[in-house]
């Protein structure tokens, strides 16, 4: 008995020791309910710490290591880009760059802002930009952008010119890629790389990262590029489960949550203490066709047009997003430059039936593939139900995202797929990868149309903005109403839940949401 008792006592002691050792001395986020005013008498008082619950894991502060949004959201607080999208005006503006000039489409001049201080105290100059671009040459996240540059010319400490291999009238947008955040050359010369990557020019400085748990930032008191934040500490807590994030928000353990569950939207918007923040996302959700599959009727543009007439998009939006999405009439995303408000192909079931009859397409079977993301599953199921009304049987196959992408890239017999496309801000990005036959790896619709390819190339090279707008409108109309490689369904609404008094939370249509000015005034 004594030996058994000793064994159990030892076990209990070991357990308690482990519990105390691994939990006791860690510098964890302080109790968010303990609000320490930071202002002086008469001035507004701010909550000391803002905690944001994110769904996916943060893994690195190095902007060049991954393109995952969960990393970029944090990196956006600590590092800056040469140019970036202003989320209030939705325009591409200078962030570290004060001004720029396109001398020729393949020759650009940039002038950096003066007296921009890095977290290590050094001042930004052209050498830091050159260093960043040199470092990014061999990195998979940046090499595609940097390989566009033929020559990099330092004019003075704050001015540089770049010469490109090929003309690009949208080169300023290239510099807005998050992985091209500018790093401090001196930091890399004086610190180990893992420390140097933490040094940026943003209003927040990296403080601590506990893998799988949280990453914390502290305000940069000597920041010259932005006003010093009113909040002292910004913490991103990783809470993968949507219902757990919601409970943490309701319980006051966090101040804002990313991606709340659609079932909680009403609770958030009707709550007296919480709010639902919404913004139309840039992701275009669509039903796509493999236009080159000549063994299938989907290669016929008339059939694709008939399907476009047959789909009730409003119904699909309710089924997939509980109505939290904006129906699309064009293949192009709404908030992009050169978007033209076209009518597209309207829902017309009678016309659809007539066209399908002419094509002898009644009673056929289509095979659809998509990923297991819940909105895609619902879109696919709704499409299946809608097509049944026209006598078309749709076999649906769900798979993981990685498997779906591999299948779309390699399987020539694909017929229909449900997917989304989230482009950058510039119009060329919208078309080049998914539509241009030489554009990239997202060419799943296999349109292979030389006229469209030429139009995309011509629009990208056109300097005259009026002519360019006409070209992009022509592209929009032809792709949406004539060639129909996709039937655009909707742009889903992005959402965030937050304490009603928290401000400075900006949803980014491209998913890199901004928290630089997150704060909460307390009484």
């Amino acid at each position, binding site marked *: 008995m004594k030996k058994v008792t000793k064994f159990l006592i030892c076990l209990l002691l070991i357990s308690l020791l482990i519990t105390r050792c691994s*939990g006791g001395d860690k510098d964890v986020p302080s109790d968010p309910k303990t609000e320490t005013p930071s202002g002086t008498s008469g001035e507004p008082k701010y909550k000391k710490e803002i905690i944001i619950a994110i769904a996916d894991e943060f893994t690195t502060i190095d902007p060049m290591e991954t393109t995952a949004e969960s990393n970029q959201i944090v990196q956006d607080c600590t590092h800056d880009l040469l140019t970036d999208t202003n989320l209030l005006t939705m325009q591409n503006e200078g962030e570290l760059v004060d001004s720029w000039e396109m001398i020729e489409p393949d020759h650009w001049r940039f002038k950096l802002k003066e007296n921009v201080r890095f977290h290590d105290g050094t001042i930004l100059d052209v050498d830091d930009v050159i260093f960043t671009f040199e470092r990014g040459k061999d990195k998979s996240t940046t090499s595609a952008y940097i390989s566009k540059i033929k020559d990099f010319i330092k004019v003075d400490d704050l001015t540089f010119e770049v010469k490109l291999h090929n003309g690009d009238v949208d080169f300023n947008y290239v510099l807005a890629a998050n992985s091209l955040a500018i790093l401090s050359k001196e930091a890399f010369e004086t610190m180990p790389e893992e420390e140097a990557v933490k040094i940026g020019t943003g209003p927040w400085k990296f403080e601590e990262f506990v893998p799988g748990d949280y990453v914390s930032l502290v305000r940069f008191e000597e920041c010259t590029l932005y006003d010093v934040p009113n909040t002292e500490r910004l913490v991103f807590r990783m809470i993968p489960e949507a219902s757990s994030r919601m409970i943490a928000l309701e319980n006051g353990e966090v101040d804002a949550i990313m991606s709340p569950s659609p079932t909680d939207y009403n609770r958030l918007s009707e709550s007296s203490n919480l709010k639902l923040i919404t913004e139309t996302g840039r992701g275009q959700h669509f039903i796509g066709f493999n236009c080159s599959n000549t063994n299938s009727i989907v290669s016929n543009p008339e059939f694709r047009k008939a399907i476009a007439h047959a789909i009730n998009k409003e119904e699909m939006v309710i089924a997939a997003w509980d109505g939290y999405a904006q129906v699309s009439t064009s293949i192009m995303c709404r908030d992009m430059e050169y978007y033209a408000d076209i009518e597209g192909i309207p829902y017309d079931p009678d016309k659809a039936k007539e066209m399908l009859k002419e094509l002898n397409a009644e009673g056929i079977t289509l095979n659809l593939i998509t990923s297991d993301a819940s909105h895609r599953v619902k879109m696919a199921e709704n499409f299946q139900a809608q097509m049944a009304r026209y006598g078309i049987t749709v076999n649906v196959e769900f798979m993981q995202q990685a498997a779906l992408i591999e299948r779309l890239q390699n399987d020539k017999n694909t017929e229909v797929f449900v997917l989304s496309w989230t482009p950058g801000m510039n119009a060329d990005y919208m078309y080049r990868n998914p539509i241009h036959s030489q554009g990239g790896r997202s060419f799943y619709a296999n349109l292979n149309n030389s006229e469209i390819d030429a139009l995309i190339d011509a629009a990208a090279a056109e300097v005259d903005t009026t002519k360019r707008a006409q070209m992009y409108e022509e592209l929009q109309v032809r792709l949406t109403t004539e060639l129909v490689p996709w039937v655009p369904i909707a742009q889903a609404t992005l959402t965030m839940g937050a304490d009603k008094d928290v401000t400075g939370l900006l949803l980014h249509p491209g998913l890199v949401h901004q928290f630089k000015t997150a704060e909460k005034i307390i009484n």
Partner: protein
Amino acid sequence: MIRYIIKRFLMMIPVLLAVSFVVYFLMDLAPGDIVGMMAPPDATEVEIEMMRKEMGLDGTLPERYFRYMKNLLKGDLGMSLSMKRPVIDIFFERFPATLKLAFGSIIVAMIISIPLGIAAATHHRSWLDGASMVTAMLGLSMPSFWLGLLLIILFSLKLGWLPSGGSDGFLSIILPAITLGAAQAGNLTRITRSSMLEVIRQDYLRTARAKGVSEKKVIYKHALKNALIPIITIFGSTLGNALGGAVAIETVFSWPGVGRLTVSAINSRDMTLATGCIIMFTIFFTLTMLLVDIAYAYVDPRIKAQYSK
């Protein structure tokens, strides 16, 4: 005894080889290409091939497997494809949290199951026995994901006593440990009960009673001593399961453990991280079982004598 321990260590080698082989090949068979997922949309084929080479994913499957095993023998589990850091570092950053949760849940399970199992056995076929078994069945059959959410709603949201998630401090382990411990307690209660029932029918206890020893002393001094021995064996596998089977609980309670990391690695096709985590789990599981066997020999002189021969 030492020879036995060495023998057990050597037996770990084929187990680890088999696990690494199965995991590596299964991960490779799963559809989806991590390089395709990680490359920017406008990356060219040449850039993708460059990335593939950088990540060590070039060459045929056997070539890659042998390269992996060669490094593994040197103690190098490789670099995570998605996090670009050594797998061993990532694993040990997260392992303390998993270990903490596993031990926490074992404590909860023991606190619930041992008294309940004894009560059920000593009051055999009474209402107490029935109630104990119903409680054990409830613990076993309740989905831990659901139980976790219920506990969060009650203790965090309604009562505000405990945090709903995270791993900051002692209070944050209580709810995940209870959730994980509940299922283990169900199993352990049933084993304690059956083990006690077997022991209390033994002749030596009848003799003790005949000699006038009090019932309390008979149960707690004589019966429990022998009944607890099988529980120690079960403890090993329970701890092993707790190490690897806490994925749902780690997700609900945002617990930064290895289970969540492994699932996330599998979903993102991070082959080296997933394989590395599973190999490390296997090592810890087999080590735990070995320790349990040694402990078993320590508490049971008959086993020790058998090893000594």
